[in-house]
């Protein structure tokens, strides 16, 4: 929480659509561009229970959205993030960030590990959906809602598609 006086506010840069042609930069493997974000987070060598997250991104008619991108961000198995604000450091080498484009059927999949419980906060796996024309839709799921992980909450957008982490009952608080 900020306590010191703040300098004059700067106004936000507005977002614009990610467009349909992002793949050659954001998920560029097929274009010979060096790829730094993948959908398989287990390559970073974290310990923990393997987790696979699959889903589809659909429009209001239920038609697949083939040009969307999903990003996930999560803690390691011990509940630590690879970030300075994390109360404890993440296991060596685990960044906890993944990115996956949707395919022709609107489908995406991540291979990762079950995120651990984070002290004082509900454990969660954060997901952002990027799709033409939308700017990011945020989709945090929480352990408190893990049995119904924010996937079809009232008013939720079909465009977000189902995505959530089911914690096994013994992991839930």
């Amino acid at each position, binding site marked *: 929480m900020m306590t010191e006086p703040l300098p004059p506010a700067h106004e936000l840069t507005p977002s614009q659509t990610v467009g349909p042609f992002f793949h050659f930069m954001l998920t560029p493997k097929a274009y010979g561009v060096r790829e730094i974000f993948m959908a398989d987070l287990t390559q970073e060598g974290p310990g923990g229970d393997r987790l696979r997250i699959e889903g589809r991104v659909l429009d209001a008619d239920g038609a697949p959205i083939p040009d969307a991108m999903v990003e996930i*961000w999560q803690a390691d198995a011990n509940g630590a993030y*690879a970030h300075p604000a994390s109360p404890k450091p993440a296991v060596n080498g685990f960044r906890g960030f993944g990115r996956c484009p949707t395919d022709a059927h609107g489908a995406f999949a991540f291979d990762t590990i079950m995120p651990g419980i984070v002290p004082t906060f509900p454990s969660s796996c954060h997901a952002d959906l990027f799709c033409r024309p*939308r700017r990011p839709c945020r989709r945090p799921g929480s352990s408190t809602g893990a049995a119904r992980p924010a996937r079809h909450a009232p008013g939720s957008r079909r465009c977000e598609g189902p995505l959530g982490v089911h914690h096994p009952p013994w992991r839930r608080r």
Partner: protein
Amino acid sequence: MTRLIYPLDGLKAHPPSLSPAYTSTVRRAPSKPLILLPHSLTEVTGPVYGHDSVVPSEADLTRQHAGEPLGERIIVTGRVLDEEGRPVPDTLIEVWQANAAGRYIHVKDQHPAPLDANFTGAGRCLTDSDGRYRFVTVKPGAYPWRNHHNAWRPAHIHLSLFGHSFLSRLVTQMYFPGDPLFPFDPIFNSIPDGAARNRLISRFDLSVTEPEWALGYQFDIVLRGRQATPMEEPHDD
């Protein structure tokens, strides 16, 4: 349980999900109000990348192939700040764009303008300790799209940024000053506020321009800041 709520006022700068003139919003925009989800440590953290993630040459889009791309060589630079005016250092910027003829290398771009064997149009860099970034590229061309009859996008460069946390994640587009297509572009005009729209237009800068080499453009980017209000909330399980 303590949770964090981020002030939402600044988000009015963004385009609404439904902008009917941009026709693909119609079936893809939510039809019900969004649900405000309290933030946890998951949202107030975000991916951090060190200098080992980015190769310096990736910031020069004109030197990724055997020869130089055709087009008007330009330098794009600016600072990434947060709403409190603090520089955002060491944050990743990814950029992608059409070539000088207005054609993307993307396999699905069928605009009958030539591809350039010396131009991919993809780059990335990190901001320095003062929040500054710099790319060298060629000015992208305008290109047609099928949103409506005779629809053309103003020349633009796509940008993706992370910032402090996942709350500051931003995907946007940078435009060029004086583009005659601005009044006709439903994507640019999906931003309701004219002043906010103008923040997406870069500024020609002679001091960035390098003699006998490249024109210079300045484009500063403001991301969400770190302010969040902790609030007590009943456990909902």
